[in-house]
């Protein structure tokens, strides 16, 4: 074998070796991706709809790829058994009460199985475990909701269209506000007033603040009222007495009410006087008689003054009166 032949053989050997090495590296990389050379356990779950899930699709747990779909087959009417190969190293973290659902890798990505939930109280899964599947939210469901949203959006935009048309036409409060300059000026004025009112409110607030500070001043009335128990007791006593007075007034009012009620009846003297017209006529006649009697009596008494038996007495009395007037002058 000459040197050229040797060189050629070596070159071919290196060529073949490198080619095989590249291929083996590819196989190992793929195996690593597919978890083919990793110790794994098999679990399964039964779905009514797998939505195009395929053998070889990924299995995720908490967002980490932990295995692949090993097999998919029917087990009964509308029952599809999905068998998954899961890395043994993740077995301890997946609990028996974990749920399994079908999702997708991104919005339009491949279908995947997602294991989620599961509480530490439940034991970890074992080889051959069957996990509970969760109902799949299909793309149709999502589209249905989106369609409803679209309709709502259409209705909203239609309303807005009408609203904006009316606003542009100067209809309604907002339209008037935008189209009518007077309204704008009024609004400006209102804003100014509002600003002034706000300023006043701020001042008032400040005054109230001062007032409250004064109220909190040690020894002040409010402070005593709030803090001094003696003052408080006095006030309470006053209030009690005020209440008693009010009670008495109430009783008095009741009595007066009763008395006034009696005045409206004819079973008593005052009531007869006030309410009986016949009695009134009689009283009137009596008064008339008394008036006539008094006139006559006056005449009689005048006559008595001029009687000789009593004339001296009246002269003395007149004289004493004249003397007192002179002294006063």
């Amino acid at each position, binding site marked *: 074998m000459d040197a050229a032949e040797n060189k050629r053989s070596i070159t071919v050997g290196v*060529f073949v070796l490198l080619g095989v090495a590249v291929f083996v590296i590819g196989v190992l990389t*793929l195996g690593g991706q597919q978890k083919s050379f990793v110790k794994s356990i098999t679990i399964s779950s039964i779905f009514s709809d797998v939505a195009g899930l395929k053998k070889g699709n990924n299995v995720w747990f908490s967002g980490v790829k932990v295995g692949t779909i090993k097999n998919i087959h029917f087990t009964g009417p509308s029952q599809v058994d999905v068998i998954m190969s899961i890395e043994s190293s993740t077995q301890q973290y997946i609990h028996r009460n974990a749920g399994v659902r079908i999702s997708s890798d991104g919005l339009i990505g491949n279908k995947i199985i997602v294991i989620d939930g599961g509480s530490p109280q439940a034991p970890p899964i074992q080889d051959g475990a069957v996990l509970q599947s969760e109902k799949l939210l299909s793309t149709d469901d999502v589209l249905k909701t989106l369609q409803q949203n679209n309709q709502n959006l259409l209705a909203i935009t239609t309303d807005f269209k009408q609203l904006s048309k009316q606003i542009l036409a100067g209809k309604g409060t907002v339209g008037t506000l935008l189209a009518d300059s007077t309204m704008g000026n009024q609004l400006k004025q209102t804003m100014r007033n509002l600003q002034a009112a706000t300023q006043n409110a701020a001042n008032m607030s400040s005054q109230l603040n001062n007032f409250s500070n004064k109220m909190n001043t040690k020894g002040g009335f409010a402070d005593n009222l709030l803090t001094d128990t003696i003052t408080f007791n006095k006030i309470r006593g006053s209030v009690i007495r005020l209440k008693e007075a009010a009670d008495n007034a109430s009783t008095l009012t009741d009595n007066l009410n009763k008395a006034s009620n009696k005045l409206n009846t004819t079973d008593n003297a005052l009531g007869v006087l006030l309410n009986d017209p016949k009695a009134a006529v009689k009283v009137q006649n009596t008064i008339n008689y008394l008036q006539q009697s008094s006139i006559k009596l006056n005449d009689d008494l005048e006559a008595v003054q001029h009687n000789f038996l009593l004339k001296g007495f009246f002269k003395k009395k007149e004289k004493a009166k004249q003397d007192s007037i002179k002294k006063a002058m």
Partner: protein
Amino acid sequence: MDSVDTSLKPAPKRFTKTRGKLAEFFLMLHRIYAFILRFFKEVFLPPYEFKEIVKQCYETGVKSFTLITLTGFIVGVIFTKQSRPSLTNFGAESWLPSLVSIAIMKALAPLVTALIAAGKVGSSIGAELGSMRVTEQIDAMEVSGTKPFKFLVCTRVIATTITIPLLATYTAFIALLGGYLNVSQNEGTSYAIFMEQAFEPLTFIDFWASLIKALVFGFTIGIVGCYQGYNSTKGTEGVGKAANGAVVTAMFLVFIEEVLIVQMAGWFR
């Protein structure tokens, strides 16, 4: 004496031109079938021409390596570059590694390698054996006691069957590297992430399907080249025809096999 199989010569022109061409094509397929049967009969029988196999591996594999590498790299870069706008339209540039790897591993690597090899190796084998046939070297070998079919055909077919899968592997690797360089330049994706995403959608079925494809393509290119050269006639004109026929037929068969193997691989998914 090993000579041209006269019983399998092209049929006389008794059909119309089109029908004649069709018949010629099917007759050629039959002749190839008979040629393949002979190959399998002789390849397992001693003596085994290892030195010649190594030499042919060097001629078909090593000498094509540069061309295949360059082609693979260009395919990777161009495919990535051309695919980007389509994915960008719906914001899926992150899918480029997956798309590139699927295209390269499942189809482009074996196909591009086979087409390049059909052009370079197939024509070379056809021309070499054709010239040996027309210059009666093959007949001379028969006379001298050397088995020309074993020495010339079996070694070359074995060489192409070995080297084309290896070249396809190199092509896949280099094309992925080209794709990575383009993705890295535009999206800034790291090598590790690119490779992870590239291998994500692939399965072992894809790998084995590609390997089997490359083996079949290699065998096809070798056998078609040898057939065309071994059965060439009409002097120097026949050499040209043999070289041309080797390339055209090999390419045509490569596409047919591609379809069939893809279909068969689908049954195992």
